[in-house]
């Protein structure tokens, strides 16, 4: 089972990398970019076939390691 975990900075948390990318896009002349926030994507292959169990396990993974919930939010997406 393919899963994707997306970790993003909470709103209000300063994201200097996103700001730098925003500036670079502007200097490249890419039109219409209002703001950029950088995050992380984890593509995870789950062995278990049970979607609910996989979702619970991935939530645990996020709470224990993948996200620092002081400054980050996470989202779990499971294909199918």
């Amino acid at each position, binding site marked *: 089972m393919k899963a994707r975990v997306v970790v993003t900075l909470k709103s209000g*948390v*300063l994201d*200097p990398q996103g700001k730098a990318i925003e500036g670079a896009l502007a200097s490249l002349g890419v039109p219409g970019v209002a703001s950029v926030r950088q995050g992380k994507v984890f593509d995870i292959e789950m062995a278990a076939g049970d979607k609910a169990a996989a979702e619970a396990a991935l939530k645990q993974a996020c709470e224990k390691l993948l996200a*620092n919930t*002081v400054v980050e939010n996470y989202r779990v997406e499971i294909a199918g």
Partner: protein
Amino acid sequence: MRAAVVTFPGSNREGDAARAIRQATGREPVHVWHADTALPVGVDLVVLPGGFSYGDYLRCGAIAGRAPIMDAVRAHAARGGYVLGVCNGFQILCESGLLPGVLMRNRDLRFVCRMQHLRVERADTAYTTRYAKGQAIEVCIAHGEGNYEAHEQTIARLEGEGLVAFRYCDAAGLVGGAANPNGSTNDIAGIYSDNLRVLGMMPHPENLIDPLVGGTDGRGLFESLAAA
């Protein structure tokens, strides 16, 4: 004072930490490996040294914060033991839950390596009795992620309960402004746990213990510990 220095894959200041401890206490610290699950019996102080544990993968200190030895370090702290985390060690303490908050990327995205003055916020803890309250000490910093951030309530609690250990200042002791190298909230350079026994700090006192390499203002911290 019996000390242990923990080495993680990618630590690089463990030798400097050991040298500072040896100089202050006259005893060689025990070297502990990240995969160990217990600390040697009778250890008073655990040092988490600087470096780039696990290559800073995922987030600085994130994987080290969950290394096997950290359960023993948490138990040591819960027993009232001393834990000093310097630079990456501070990041590890935050990631392990031993200290609140998080060290974010420096405000201007640059790795900052320079001499740095710190104001000693209180001189009545085990780490600071050899300093004076308000004293500006000169040590050094070398980090890319030293911008301390925490929930507003957490910052208020740290400030209200006197848990800020050091602030970035200039040579005259004036806090903030250009003296803040990384955008850290309230110019925080180091914080204590509630019982004042766990200290996390971005600057490197262990590198300023010898006049040959720029100064000795870092000695006081280790001498304070040795006398604790």
